[in-house]
């Protein structure tokens, strides 16, 4: 569940978002698109509690963006950005073990998750040595372990190969079916036609197009 009303985000005096209104229901997939610098990443960062709302109002996964606990919010959303989202100096397996233990999950799930994202052959490789696409996959594995309520994915297709994109589409379809709210920023349309996402177009920090 995501609600935004006239959301404005200013950083260093520059409006990253200049008044966004949004209602996203659980179990839906939204693709955010728009020109470079339109504010896609900024929107996702706002929803993930990584930047604070300057004015306006908003709720994500039941947490108020203005007065709520941003730590609680971050605990409920899953975030995958351009940069790596794990410890660069730990191996693939150690990263996932750390996450599982921190979440109190059984570490037995890990081999299954690795299998799923296609990193089984790289379990002992230090994360910083992974290729761009493999880093993406490790980030997805970390999310898979957590299965958050709200998924925020910034250009997930970038640097994923064909097979990776197919896996990703399947994953998203499954997650959306299970009732999560998924927001994806992308320059390419998603490939799988079965997903039928809602497409928002941003420009100048505003929503200027909305196609379901």
């Amino acid at each position, binding site marked *: 569940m995501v609600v935004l009303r006239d959301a404005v985000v*200013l950083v260093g005096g520059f409006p990253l978002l200049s008044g966004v209104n949004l209602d996203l229901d659980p179990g839906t997939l939204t693709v955010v698109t728009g020109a470079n610098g*339109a504010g896609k990443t900024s929107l996702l960062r706002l929803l993930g509690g990584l930047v*604070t709302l300057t004015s306006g109002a908003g709720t994500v996964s039941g947490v108020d963006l203005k007065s709520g606990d941003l730590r609680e919010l971050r605990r409920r959303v899953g975030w995958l950005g351009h940069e790596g989202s794990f410890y660069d100096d730990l191996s693939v397996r150690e990263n996932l073990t750390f996450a599982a233990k921190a979440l109190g999950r059984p570490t037995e799930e890990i081999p299954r998750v690795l299998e799923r994202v296609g990193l089984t052959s790289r379990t002992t490789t230090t994360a910083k040595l992974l290729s761009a696409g493999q880093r993406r996959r490790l980030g997805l594995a970390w999310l898979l372990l957590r299965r958050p309520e709200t998924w925020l994915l910034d250009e997930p297709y970038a640097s994923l190969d064909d097979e990776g994109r197919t896996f990703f589409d399947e994953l998203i379809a499954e997650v959306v079916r299970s009732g999560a709210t998924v927001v994806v920023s992308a320059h390419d349309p998603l490939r799988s036609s079965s997903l039928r996402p809602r497409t928002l177009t941003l420009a100048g920090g505003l929503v200027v197009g909305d196609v379901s």
Partner: protein
Amino acid sequence: MIKTLSQRLLGPVTLVLLALTFWLGLWVTPPDKVQGNLARLLYVHPAIAWVALYVSFGTAAIASALYLWKRTRSVVMDRVAYCAMEVSTVFIILTLITGSIWGRPTWGVWWAWDARLTSTAILGLFELAYLALRRANDDPDLRARRCAVFAIIAAINVPIIHFSVDWWNTLHQGATVFTENGNLLVHGIMLWTLFISLFAFTLLFFWLLRARYRLEVLRATRYDVALDEALAQRRREGVH
């Protein structure tokens, strides 16, 4: 009504009291038996130190604590903390300067590694560090939280400074005005002058704080105006 009146009177009253302090301190009170005219610093240095340590730094620390407490968290607290800290830095530096000026003839050195002097200098460094921390962060929310925590840590110093003269036997004057058994060591007109100086410098602090706070608010409004402009421009970016 009363509020505006008191606000308007704050400046003049401060000036009058400061003038009174100087008049009493320089002309009316007698020179000391031991220290001679040097003792007149008694009406400047303790008052400035008192303001630096308790009034201004205290204000900053309390405002910081109130900021950290969820229910009283507001921009106002952050601003008060910051402004008070800035004024406090000035007073700490004045404490060091007046102390040094006093120390040169009485102890023979400008500076000594005495417990109170050192701990005061350390508090000054804390305040400088606070200002550096302030400038190193752009995000107002993050900045406010980091600075508040830092101010709380710095506050640990205040009791250390105060009790340093008792804990370590040092050069610096022990409690002079009020000793532990409540005896007054300073009498008559000297005592009165001392009290007036305390009061005058305390008012001076509030006066400075108010001026500084206004500046901060002004800055915020100017910032808001600039933001509206930036917002309009950013929205135009989206039109074409």
